């Protein structure tokens, strides 16, 4: 997994988002055992306490769970993963629409351009 961080957001929230993305995109499989906090922190190049905080947040969200003795695992609940995936998709759409409106496009134009784009994508 490749980790990338921007300067204008807390590191922990970016970790949460990137791990969520890893889970919904299948980089982390349902039920997969995660590396130790320290190893994950080393891989991402971040402070172990920050990684710990991110994983606790993901636990609260139900994306991962821990078993006292054997470590942390990705949830096996496909519905939880699907819901998170949908949230990401909605966020992408929101950003896309915002950018298009900034460029001055109206709803109808956006929809027709989107159709065109999807069509081209299917051709290639």
């Amino acid at each position, binding site marked *: 997994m490749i980790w990338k961080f921007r300067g204008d957001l807390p590191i922990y929230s970016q970790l949460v988002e990137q791990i969520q993305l890893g889970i919904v995109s299948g980089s982390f499989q349902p039920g997969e055992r995660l590396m130790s906090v*320290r190893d994950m922190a080393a891989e991402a190049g971040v*402070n172990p306490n920050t990684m710990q905080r991110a994983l606790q947040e993901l636990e609260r969200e139900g994306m991962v769970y821990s078993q006292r003795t054997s470590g942390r695992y990705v949830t096996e609940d496909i519905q939880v993963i699907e819901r998170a995936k949908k949230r990401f998709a909605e966020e992408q759409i929101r950003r896309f629409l915002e950018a298009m409106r900034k460029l001055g496009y109206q709803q109808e134009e956006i929809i027709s351009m989107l159709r065109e784009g999807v069509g081209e994508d299917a051709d290639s």
Partner: protein
Amino acid sequence: MPILECRELCKSYGSVRALDNVSLSIEQGRVIGLLGPNGSGKTTLLKLANGLLTPTEGEILIAGEAPGRLSRSIISYLPDHNYLADWMKVRQLMDFFEDFYEDFDRAKAADMLKRLNIDSEMRIREMSKGTREKTQLILVMSRAARLYLLDEPIGGVDPATRDFILDTIIRNYNPEAAVVISTHLIADVEQVLDDVIFINNGKIVLMSSVDNIREEHGMSVDQYFREVFRC
């Protein structure tokens, strides 16, 4: 009890105030960046913690005691210059550390040296600057100390060496120890820090967590630092 505590600490060199009324405390389990421009008092503070300097006023406590026999046994210090005898071989240095520090883990040091292909028969003076810095850091981090004081550990090393140094700090993380890293290269270390202390003209300007600064100001600690210290 904080692992490092300063109470109204002042240090003067003649008429120059290197540290001015510094009060702070550092808890175990934290990785702290001591950040400030050149000449702001970072090295003076680390030297006071080590007992290499004595306070002009106020006090500095290591695990509740003034620097002395106890603090020497629990602090692992990386000075900002080469302090190792340059005629010594790596192997001899490991003997030396083993004799001096009960908490020195020779196997750990040997393992890290091996990973970096540093020959234990090599003398310090035969090494490039980067290799010398890596060797020093390996020795310092191979102690099971309670407080690591690293003075400019990434100054003047190439990006690969810098990554190794930061990786070593993360992998050696111990919830019972604290790590203080002094540097002015903030962008490079920001991600491995819990908290930062901004110091300028011997005074503490700010103490906060990295993520708090990012949350409150919507910018990295590096950018925020440039804003605070804009000349």
